[in-house]
């Protein structure tokens, strides 16, 4: 059974963790600060409900996750250009007319070791940010924040689930290219 510390201590102990958690999910510093504040205010109100089953930090991060999803649900999004045409071009660069690979790429050696490395995550994060705008939003909502498919389609105005699958596939292929060039094989000559 864990008991709760006061709000000052929360800010002291978990302020940075909460902030970073929010920042890497929403990619906006001001918004991340606001989310930390909302989380701590909500936590103050919900003190009585803390069952002590988890650590304080886990409890606070749980509240933060809800706040982030609320934010995505409420926020108005700008009309973004559909990137699908650009992506169709890129597919032509990857495959020839008969559907064979036009590009060569090397094996990634021991990739799981990267998961423990700070620099890898920095590159990973940059790669997500550099996806075309709509794909970045989709990746953030569906993959990083786990919003349900139907909700993501509605929020991003994607007409069919099938389209969303295709877009996700393009986002992952882009991420693959970016991780390859930025981390695994930075010297390899890839056709762009």
């Amino acid at each position: 059974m864990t008991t709760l510390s006061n709000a000052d201590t929360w800010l002291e102990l978990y302020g940075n963790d909460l902030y970073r958690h929010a920042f890497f999910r929403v990619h906006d510093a001001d918004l991340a600060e606001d989310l930390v504040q909302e989380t701590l205010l909500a936590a103050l109100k919900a003190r009585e409900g803390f069952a002590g089953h988890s650590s304080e930090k886990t409890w606070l991060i749980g509240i933060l996750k809800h706040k982030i999803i609320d934010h995505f649900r409420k926020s108005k999004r700008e009309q973004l250009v559909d990137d699908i045409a650009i992506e169709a071009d890129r597919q032509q660069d990857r495959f020839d007319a008969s559907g064979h690979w036009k590009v060569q790429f090397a094996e990634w050696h021991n990739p799981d070791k990267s998961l423990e490395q700070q620099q890898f995550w920095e590159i990973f994060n940059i790669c997500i940010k550099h996806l075309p705008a709509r794909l970045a939003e989709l990746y953030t909502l569906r993959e990083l924040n786990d919003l349900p498919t139907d909700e993501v389609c509605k929020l991003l105005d994607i007409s069919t689930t099938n389209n969303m699958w295709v877009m996700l596939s393009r986002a992952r292929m882009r991420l693959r290219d970016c991780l390859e060039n930025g981390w695994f094989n930075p010297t390899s000559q890839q056709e762009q």
Partner: protein
Amino acid sequence: MLSCKEVSELVSQYPERLLSFREQLGIKMHLMICKLCSRFTRQMKFIARATNTFMDHPEDCLDHSHATQLSDKARERIKKALYR
């Protein structure tokens, strides 16, 4: 026989889009003879693992990042809001 383009599309849509038995079989047969698509598939699986790891605890993945600390100014502001 599925083409490399089709296989890469299918494996990069998984697990969002669940694959039919026919598709799974088609992919398996293709991967047995295609080195590049096997490589691509392993890389896609890695990207899925990385995404899950990051999604669970982004704050732990990047905990030394100096650019992402809660500023003193923000701390003061939040403190004020907490004791209003």
